[in-house]
């Protein structure tokens, strides 16, 4: 497919780079002109809008944007397109675009997902995409929800390595032990799990799957020592701890990092029962 025809070289010193970009642009134009007629080539994006300060947004509503469809387009791409081309006040959190920062957990076509990790073509209904802020959280504006409560729950489980004795030099950890906690360390604090859990929605003090998972990560880290482990168990067992979980599995289903949250919670329940039965 050598398109290196010499007659394109007429303009003064056109370099291949510029030529390539020109070709690309032509292609894009072509694509664009062909899309204007066929409605199939746009995605209908229905987005929840709300702003406490702007008069006509105080009553929440849905806005519809028609975003040109592209191969590999994610929901986040579509949102960014809508913001940059149609309405710059469209507000949502995002940053990494690669499912590591946990900013853009959203309610997409009825389930909690990361906007950046969700290919539009993979959705059940890929012609109409409904995007809402995470359920069970207060909406600050548009798709932005209040995350403070989630952070508070995360931080309430003492989520930091805190060994019984200060280590000197490199500590050893067995491969098995690292393997044991591996999945639990993958959490990106996106809050999808918490939003999906009915129990967390009903009981504001419930630690929630992500925080319990965090507790799991430290509880099972053999480097911390047994004394600390006992203290951690008390956090886990508290009134609004593991016992609140009703094994609904929604958290596990939505977790974008595939962390087996329910399994971790259940394991901790058993640990708690076991450690207490010992003294019977």
């Amino acid at each position: 497919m050598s398109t290196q025809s010499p007659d394109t070289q007429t303009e003064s010193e056109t370099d291949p780079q510029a030529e390539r970009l020109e070709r690309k642009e032509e292609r894009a134009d072509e694509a664009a002109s062909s899309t204007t007629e066929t409605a199939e080539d746009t995605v209908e994006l229905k987005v929840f809008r709300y702003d406490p300060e702007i008069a006509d947004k105080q009553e929440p509503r849905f806005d519809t944007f028609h975003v040109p469809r592209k191969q590999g387009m994610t929901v986040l791409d579509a949102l960014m397109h809508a913001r940059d081309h149609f309405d710059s006040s469209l507000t949502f959190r995002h940053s990494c675009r690669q499912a590591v920062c946990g900013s853009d957990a959203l309610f997409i076509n009825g389930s909690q997902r990361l906007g950046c990790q969700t290919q539009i073509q993979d959705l059940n209904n890929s012609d109409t995409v409904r995007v809402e802020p995470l359920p069970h959280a207060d909406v600050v504006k548009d798709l932005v929800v209040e995350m403070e409560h989630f952070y508070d729950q995360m931080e309430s489980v003492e989520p930091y390595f805190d060994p019984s004795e200060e280590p000197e030099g490199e500590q050893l950890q067995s491969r098995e032990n690292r393997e044991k906690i591996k999945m639990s360390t993958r959490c990106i604090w996106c809050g999808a799990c918490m939003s999906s859990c009915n129990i967390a929605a009903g009981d504001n003090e419930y630690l929630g799957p992500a925080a319990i998972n965090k507790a799991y990560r430290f509880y099972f880290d053999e480097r911390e020592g047994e004394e600390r482990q006992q203290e951690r168990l008390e956090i886990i067992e508290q009134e609004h701890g593991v016992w609140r979980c009703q094994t609904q599995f929604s958290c596990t289903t939505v977790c974008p990092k595939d962390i087996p949250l329910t399994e971790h919670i259940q394991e901790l329940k058993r640990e708690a029962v076991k450690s207490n039965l010992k003294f019977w």
Partner: protein
Amino acid sequence: MSQSYDRGLIEDFGRWREFSAGMWAWVFHKFTGWVLIAYLFTHIAVLSTSIEAADASAAVIANGEDVYTQTLHGLESIVIVRFLEVGLLAVAVFHILNGVRLLLVDLGLGLEQQDKSFYASLVLTGAIVVASVPTFLTGAF
């Protein structure tokens, strides 16, 4: 200060179409549990007629003319009660099957198949109930 908008109850109950298997299992288990405990209370209430019946004479008892037997038979002859009993069976069977599923989940077994085992409980409940309809309804009409 920023204000925030709380979408309230709509979030809790308006989303049922989007519930996942585990959520339905939870809802059903809850419902069946409550029905069962409510039934237990009525059940004992009905059976309490036996206390009075115990005072009846041996002949009355032998003839089935005591309050206990009369009450039970009276109830059993009402068609609706028969249907309610089928309902009770459904409720009990589902609660048992899903209860077993939950016990397994608590033991860390079959977590990967949790949605399948829920559907299995539903299907099995249906099958058992259908199979027992003849037994439950004999003589009802």
